[in-house]
């Protein structure tokens, strides 16, 4: 045991703990063991696992057929196997290896140059069918010892266990599992047991008590959409992200989308934030000098009130100021969007070419909210964006698979919170109906997501349907309370009038005149359609 360290001269005396045998020992305790974590090779999964799979752990990868269990474990095997510590993939009474190889090689992670030496497939079906569990264990021990395996996979453990239970009983299977775990841990192998389990089995199956980790994969069907989910039900020694996370299987294998979108650890908003111009000078004034950097702004209004135009001006102004941007658009194609911006004299195409702007067009109807948001987050990182437009929240929700729509607000809350926390300024648009009796912000009740709300609406004045805007809310400071009239011209949204004092109840959309009527020219009558 090391002697206690001598007190350094001139340092203030520290309060000494009560002298007991325990505290004396603790003062010289060696450092705790550091558990190395293996990267899974599955994008997003390491974050969910709290860093990766603990080295030398025994894990179950469970779920119904077709959930991606085999693919997940293949990814882990290919990502971690080395010539010195290869991966041994034992197959038992499951999918024939030729078929497994046939399908798995379609994924980009499958490197055939690793097959045979770095990733090895060993079929235990003959041993399992002709002999007993002891022989299976003996074969595994012989193969792992000979190969010095670092990763061991048993696929399907459930099938093996089921056969063994019918042959020799439950206790024998537990004994096998105990000896297998003991050997593989001692041999410093990280192990994955694959099984087609259902959730109810967790309570009564000793397997789930013995293992260190349980990765549960599932498919959830809602109406016509199927969504894959992943849950870390158990992982000893480290904190995982709880809950169900979306999984997608592409040509690159599995990709996981954490519920927290990896945004939990982002830096807080800076104490002093600059004001950003929205690109409409009069609106900047109404906002007290502009939007506070890192704010989330909601522009709400009915169809045709210029929400997209305003959003484009916000991005274009950012580009003029050297701030890169992302426009996530859900209702309109990027070409049309860029063309309309052109008509306002806002050149989005050039910014796209230089990489200062990216227009993300997302309309597939089976998107998960997490992967959509991940696409936005990836684009923000890729471009280095400081401004983000989401046009519109209604379109965003419609692009999601029905099963995700219930999670929409919660996920949006996480994303907006995370992004604004990292200093990204977000402008979202939302379509609301004017009911001409009250001023509605949004039927989504998502105003809690936003720092600032700008409401656009139609107002009937002097026999015309005109447009007004008002700043409803500004969390970071004072703002104008004026209701201002605006028009959409070749320059985009332009605020034209100071607040009107000659009308009352403008916010209802049907104001009544309180001041004298001004002389004005009548607009020309419309051309008769059928007049030849």
């Amino acid at each position, binding site marked *: 045991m090391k002697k206690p360290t001598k007190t350094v001269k001139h340092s203030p005396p520290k309060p000494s703990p009560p002298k007991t045998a325990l505290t004396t020992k603790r003062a010289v305790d060696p450092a705790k063991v550091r558990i190395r974590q293996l990267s899974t090779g599955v994008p997003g999964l390491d974050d969910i696992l709290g860093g990766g799979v603990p080295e030398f752990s025994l894990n179950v990868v469970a779920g119904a057929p077709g959930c991606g269990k085999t693919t997940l474990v293949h990814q882990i095997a290919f990502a971690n196997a080395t010539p010195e510590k290869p991966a041994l993939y034992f197959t038992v009474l499951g999918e*024939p290896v*030729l078929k497994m190889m*046939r399908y798995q*090689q379609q994924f980009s992670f499958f490197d055939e140059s690793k097959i*045979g030496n770095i990733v090895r497939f*060993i079929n235990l079906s*003959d041993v399992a069918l002709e002999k007993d569990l002891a022989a299976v264990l003996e074969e595994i021990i012989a193969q792992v010892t000979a190969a010095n395996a670092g990763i061991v996979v048993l696929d399907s453990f459930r099938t093996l266990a089921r056969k063994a239970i019918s042959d020799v009983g439950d206790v024998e299977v537990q004994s096998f599992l105990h000896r297998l775990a003991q050997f593989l841990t001692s041999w410093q192998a990280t192990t994955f047991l694959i099984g087609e389990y259902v959730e109810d089995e967790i309570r009564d199956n000793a397997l789930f008590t013995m293992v260190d980790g349980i990765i549960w994969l599932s498919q959830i069907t809602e109406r016509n959409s199927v969504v894959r989910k992943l849950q870390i039900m158990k992982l000893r020694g480290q904190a995982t992200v709880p809950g169900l996370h979306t999984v997608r299987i592409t040509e690159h294998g599995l990709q996981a989308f954490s519920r927290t979108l990896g945004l939990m650890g982002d830096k807080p908003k800076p104490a002093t934030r600059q004001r950003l111009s929205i690109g409409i000078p009069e609106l900047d004034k109404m906002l007290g000098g502009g939007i506070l950097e890192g704010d989330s702004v909601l522009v709400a209004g009915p169809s045709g009130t210029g929400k997209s135009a305003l959003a484009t001006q916000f991005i274009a102004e950012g580009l003029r100021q050297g701030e890169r941007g992302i426009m996530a658009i859900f209702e309109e194609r990027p070409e049309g969007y860029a063309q309309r911006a052109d008509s306002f004299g806002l050149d989005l195409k050039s910014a796209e070419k230089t990489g200062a702007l990216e227009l993300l067009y997302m309309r597939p109807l089976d998107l998960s909210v997490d992967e959509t948001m991940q696409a936005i987050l990836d684009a923000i990182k890729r471009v280095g964006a400081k401004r983000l437009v989401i046009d519109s929240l209604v379109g965003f929700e419609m692009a999601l698979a029905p099963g995700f729509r219930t999670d929409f607000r919660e996920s949006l809350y996480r994303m907006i919170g995370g992004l604004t926390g990292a200093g990204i300024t977000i402008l979202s648009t939302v379509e609301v109906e004017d009911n001409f009796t009250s001023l509605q912000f949004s039927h989504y009740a998502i105003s809690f997501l936003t720092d600032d709300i700008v409401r656009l609406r139609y107002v009937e004045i002097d026999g015309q349907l005109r447009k007004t805007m008002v700043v409803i809310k500004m969390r970071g400071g004072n703002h104008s309370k004026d209701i201002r009239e605006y028009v959409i011209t070749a320059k985009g949204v332009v605020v034209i009038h100071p607040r009107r004092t000659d009308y009352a109840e403008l916010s209802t959309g049907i104001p009544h005149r309180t001041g004298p009527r001004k002389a004005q020219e009548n607009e020309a009558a419309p051309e008769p359609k059928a007049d030849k």
Partner: protein
Amino acid sequence: MNGASPQIRNIAQRLIEYEAQGKAVSETTGSATFEVTDRLRPLLATLMGRGGFRALLARALAMASAEVSWLREVRVGADGTLEGLATLHASLKPAEFREGRVVLLAHLLGLLVAFIGPALTMRLMSEIWPQLAADRVDLADGDKK
């Protein structure tokens, strides 16, 4: 790819020649056993199980028998060996016997290529015959040497 292409037949012939090299067998008649499948058997049985290997070899034999009639007399044993070759070897002309082995092996390789693709088949075969990789044999495009 299904069945045996000329490229695969060429490689099958070469594998048979590799196995014959350095062995005290007549160059004209060849061995009465089938060393190539005997060497493939442990590797493929490890991957697929003995039953899996037996099934694959039986399928290759059935396809090859359509081309070479004497192969119909051959059986796949329980352990995955080919039974009946010794008897047939004595009764057939050397060229006939050699051709039958080439066709059978070509079909076996062809099945592997059909299931797991040329790259992975080549990878597995290179474990037994490393000179295949050195000779730059390509199962997809034939021999580039």
